[in-house]
Each structure stands twice: as structure tokens, then as C-alpha cells.
């Protein structure tokens, strides 16, 4: 279990996070959504140990997060960044293997098989010898997903749940790979791991999240199941959109069809 309690972060006089408390239990796919600048990325940095909150605490398995050494954390949690350029000609295999190298005692057989298995899971089988720099943005994003899967191993390793953080994992993907990526994340949670993903697409959040946290101006505006959280009120107050939330007949799942705001009367 990873939880933050009353965490606040400020840059100068501006508060980025205001007394936020969030739990990330194993076995659950937690999605964080919210407008740009709501504090989602800062929340992720606090939960991964990259940033220490100015107030409040972060506890990981009932131990303060700042007591963990970087290599101890790397053995228990992996973080998928937003895709980035590399200045050097690494092959896809070399990037994926970086994830394996932070795990102690990886056998030779696993060192050989794990990267190609991870590449197959993200639909990049046979891409090992390609140069990372020459791939499209979406392919690069999936290479990093394979790297992160290599780092984290099984959802439950040595009797303890592992944790996966995904920062906008679907941002440069086509719709099929968006769904496949979130299937991987959900399966990881079903098999006992903890997953936290930042998503902008509320429809994807509605379809995949076990638990949805909506951030707004550095605070948790709402949290619960997507069915309960995504509402007309939320759209108006958090996103400032007068859009109506639709409901799929199948299980009352909420959906939002983006459309032009011309002709919509502004609601109070």
C-alpha cells in the first residue's frame, strides 16, 4: 500500500498541491484526471519519491518513502514517463534492457527472454534491433512501457505487490494501442499489483478505472468509481464545460462526446 497524507507542495507563494490525501492500494487501477495545471504530475512526483512534499507524509508499506534508497524503490515500483527523445543511438532492445538492469540477480535466461517478451506484450515484437530514435512517438512510448514492464516483473514478486505509475501512457497512441495499453495496466492490477495512471481521456478513464481521482486547482475535487464521479456537475465545475454526460445502456457507464460549445447556453 502506498499512501500520501495531507501532502502540500508549493513553488514560491503558489500552492501546487493543497493537503492532498490519496491511497494507492494493490489490486486496483487508480486513474488521476483533471484539467491542465491541476497538480496531477506533481502528485505523481510526490508518490514516486521524485519530489518530497513540503508538508504531509508519504508512506510505502508503512515506512516513510524518503527512507528508501533509490535502488530499493526501483525494485518495487516503476514509472512510465511521457515519451522523450534520446540523443544517442540506442537500439530498442538496449532501452528495454535498462529496466532489467536495476533488478538484482536476473538470470542469463531471463536477461535474454524478458525484453523480447515485454516487446511482444506492447505489440513491438521484432523491433529489438531498430534504433529508438527512428521510431514514431507512439512506438517510443510503447518501448518505454516494455522497459517499465521489464523493471517491475510480476505484479506480485516475492510475496509483495509491485507498483506501476503511468504518466499519460496513451497520449501518443492510436485507439487500438490506447486500449491495449490500459488492458495491460488493468491486468497488472487484477493480478495483485497496484497501478496509478494519469489520463486526460475521461472516456478511457470511465472504461478502465477501478477508482477515479479528479484533481482541480491542487485539490482532490472528487474520487470514487467513474460511474459516481463523472457527472454534469463535475464537467461544469472542474472543466468549465456545459456538456452533458451520456450513459451507456450497458452498465450505466458514463461517456462524454466532445462537441462544439457554440449554441450551448452557459450554465450557472
Amino acid at each position, binding site marked *: 500500500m502506498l499512501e500520501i497524507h495531507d501532502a502540500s507542495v508549493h513553488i514560491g507563494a503558489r500552492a501546487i498541491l493543497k493537503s492532498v490525501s490519496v491511497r494507492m492500494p494493490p489490486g486496483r487501477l487508480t486513474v488521476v484526471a483533471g484539467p491542465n495545471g491541476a497538480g496531477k504530475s506533481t502528485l505523481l512526483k510526490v508518490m514516486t519519491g521524485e519530489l518530497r512534499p513540503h508538508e504531509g507524509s508519504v508512506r510505502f508499506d508503512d515506512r516513510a518513502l524518503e527512507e528508501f534508497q533509490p535502488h530499493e524503490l526501483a525494485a518495487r515500483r516503476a514509472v512510465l514517463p511521457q515519451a522523450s527523445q*534520446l540523443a544517442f543511438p540506442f*537500439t530498442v*532492445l538496449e*532501452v528495454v534492457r535498462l529496466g532489467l538492469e536495476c533488478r538484482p540477480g536476473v538470470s542469463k535466461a531471463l536477461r535474454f527472454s524478458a525484453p523480447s517478451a515485454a516487446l511482444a506484450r506492447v505489440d513491438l515484437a521484432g523491433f529489438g534491433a531498430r534504433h529508438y530514435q527512428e521510431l514514431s512517438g507512439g512506438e517510443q512510448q510503447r518501448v518505454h512501457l516494455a522497459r517499465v514492464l521489464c523493471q517491475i516483473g510480476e505484479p506480485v514478486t516475492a510475496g509483495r505487490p509491485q507498483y506501476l505509475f503511468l504518466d499519460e501512457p496513451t497520449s501518443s497512441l492510436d485507439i487500438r494501442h490506447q486500449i491495449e495499453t490500459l488492458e495491460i495496466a488493468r491486468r497488472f492490477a487484477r493480478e495483485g499489483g497496484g497501478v496509478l495512471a494519469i489520463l486526460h481521456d475521461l472516456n478511457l478513464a470511465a472504461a478502465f478505472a477501478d477508482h477515479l481521482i479528479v484533481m482541480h486547482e491542487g485539490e482532490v475535487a472528487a474520487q470514487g468509481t467513474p460511474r459516481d464521479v463523472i457527472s454534469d456537475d463535475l464537467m461544469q465545475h472542474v472543466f468549465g464545460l456545459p456538456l452533458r454526460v451520456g450513459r451507456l445502456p450497458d452498465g450505466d457507464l458514463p461517456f462524454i462526446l466532445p462537441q462544439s460549445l457554440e449554441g450551448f447556453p452557459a450554465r450557472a
Partner: protein
Amino acid sequence: MPIAEGDRSRKAAFAIAWLAVALGALAVASLGVGASKMPLGDVITVLLAGPNAKHLPAGDVLIVWQIRMPRMLLGALIGASLATAGVVLQGLFRNPLADPGLVGVSSGAALGAVTMIVLGPGLFAGAFRLFEMFALPVAAFAGGLIATILLYAIATRRGRTSVATMLLAGIALGAFAAAGSGLLIYVASEQQLREITFWSLGALSGASWIKLTVSGPIMLLVLLAAPVLGRGLNAIVLGEAEAFHLGINVQRLKHLAIFLVAGATGAAVAVSGVIGFVGIVVPHLLRFAIGADHRALLPASALLGATLLLLADMFARTIVAPAELPIGIVTAAVGAPFFLGMLLRRRGIVDL
């Protein structure tokens, strides 16, 4: 064990073995090259007989053991150190255009060295004269360290490095260090001026066993320590946050990297002045051949850097024989167009 697609580690291991053999052969061959030529067979005979051989011509023994041997060893160590400093600096700054000579680290080291040449005699009078010799590389190291730390503080914000800022900051640091050196040269004596001028062109001709004893161990230490950085540099290429997520102690990695760059550059600059472009040409060529994995790139660059500097020195010693060119002129003449070529192909990166 089969090799996975995209795995270049075995290829790199072969390359490293071949580079080691080539360096060894060239090192022996270089002992026969110079103002007085010596056939390879004679060189080997002199080598096998040892430095105190009485049955061989005294001139040959002197040339091989007292003149060319220390020069060859220093040249190899300097080439290896500069190439290693280049690889570490490029990994740290996440771009292939960083070179200790280009971004002001060598200029900082040079300012440290000039300071010691000019002000040292005043500091180390009488019995302390002995320390003066050792003070030169220490001062160069300190100058290089300050320059590297400044450069890092200026060019990196929130774990990201701007290539343009790095290159421009390097120009500013270089200009500042040159102004400092200029001021010192202004107050220097005739004898010190000669020493500074000679040294600033990048020359190996002053090589001796004494200089080797002073600077050699520092360079050797850096070369042995550098491979420890391999895994960390691989991770930091993805970004500082990503390296932390992969379990790297980023702060410690950066400190060690900056320390090693300053050590390698300072020791090299102290004995030979500023020799540019080795740190940029060598890793760039190797990335084409064996890939970017720093665990292979660091030892391979050390070997190729040593080899190329020995070649450059052999050229410098023979092209205008019996006089010789400062080796810095040779490396700049080859390296500067090479760097321009890289810059033209990578305009996109520099725009960042």
C-alpha cells in the same frame, strides 16, 4: 546462449579486444618513429634488454627508454583520459556535442595551470620547490572542477540540459578563463612566458618520466574508475527523473562524473596543454560502430583515444622533422571540421 536482436554487447567486446591489440602494436611501433628512425626489430631488442642494457648502443637505449617511452605512455594516457572525459561529459549532458575542450573545462584547467606556473614559484620557495611540480596538476584539476560545476549549474535546469545554453556557456567560460590567463601572462616573467606559450599549444615534447609520475597516476585512476559510471550514464540518458526511477542515486552519479571529468582533463592539461577534439571525435566514431552503451563505450573510447593520440603524435613528430608540430594543432586541424560536420547534421538538436 543465442544473441537477442539488437544486442550489440558481443560486437562491442570484440571491438574492445581488437582496439587493445591495435593500441599495443602501435605503442611499440611508435617507439621507433621520430627524428632518428629505428627498425622495429631494434626497438624490440632494446625493449627486451631493459633500460640499463650495457651491450647495446647507449644512444638507442636512451632514445627508447628515456625519451620516447615516457612520451608514448603520456600520449596514450592523455588520449585515453580526454576521450573518457568526453564520453562522461556527453552522457552527463545528454548530448554528443560536449567536449572538455569546447565547453570550457579545459580552459578552466588551463587557467589553473597558468596560475600555478606564474604564481607557483612565489608560493613554493626553498625546500617546498618539490611540491611545485605536483601543484601543477592539482591546480589544473581545481580549475577544471570549478569550470565543470559552473557549466552544469548554468546549462541544466530541472534535470534537462539545453545544448545551446551549454555551448554558449562554454564560450563564455572559455573567454573568462582566457581573460584570467591573459592577465597572468601580462605579469609573467620572460621564462614563464616561454613555458606558458609552449605548453598552451598542446605539446607532448616536454614528456619525461617525472611528468609521467606526477600526472600519470591521476589519469590511470580516472580510467579505472570511469567504467563504474556505465550503468548510471545509460540511465541518465533517459533523463534525471528516469534515472532515479531506475534506481540510480543521481546526485552521487553527477558528483562522481564531474569529479572524474575534472580529474582527467586537469591531469591531461597539466602535462600537455589544451589538446582539443579527442573527446568528441572518438566517442562519436565508436557509437556508430558499437552503439551507445556506456559500459562498452567507456573502455573502447579510452583505447581508441590513446590510439588516435599516438597516431597524431607520430604525425606531429615526423611531418616537419627534425622539428615537430605541437600536437594540439594536429588534433584541431582534424577535429574542428569533424565537429562542424556533426553540428550541420544535428542542427535540430542545437535548436533546443
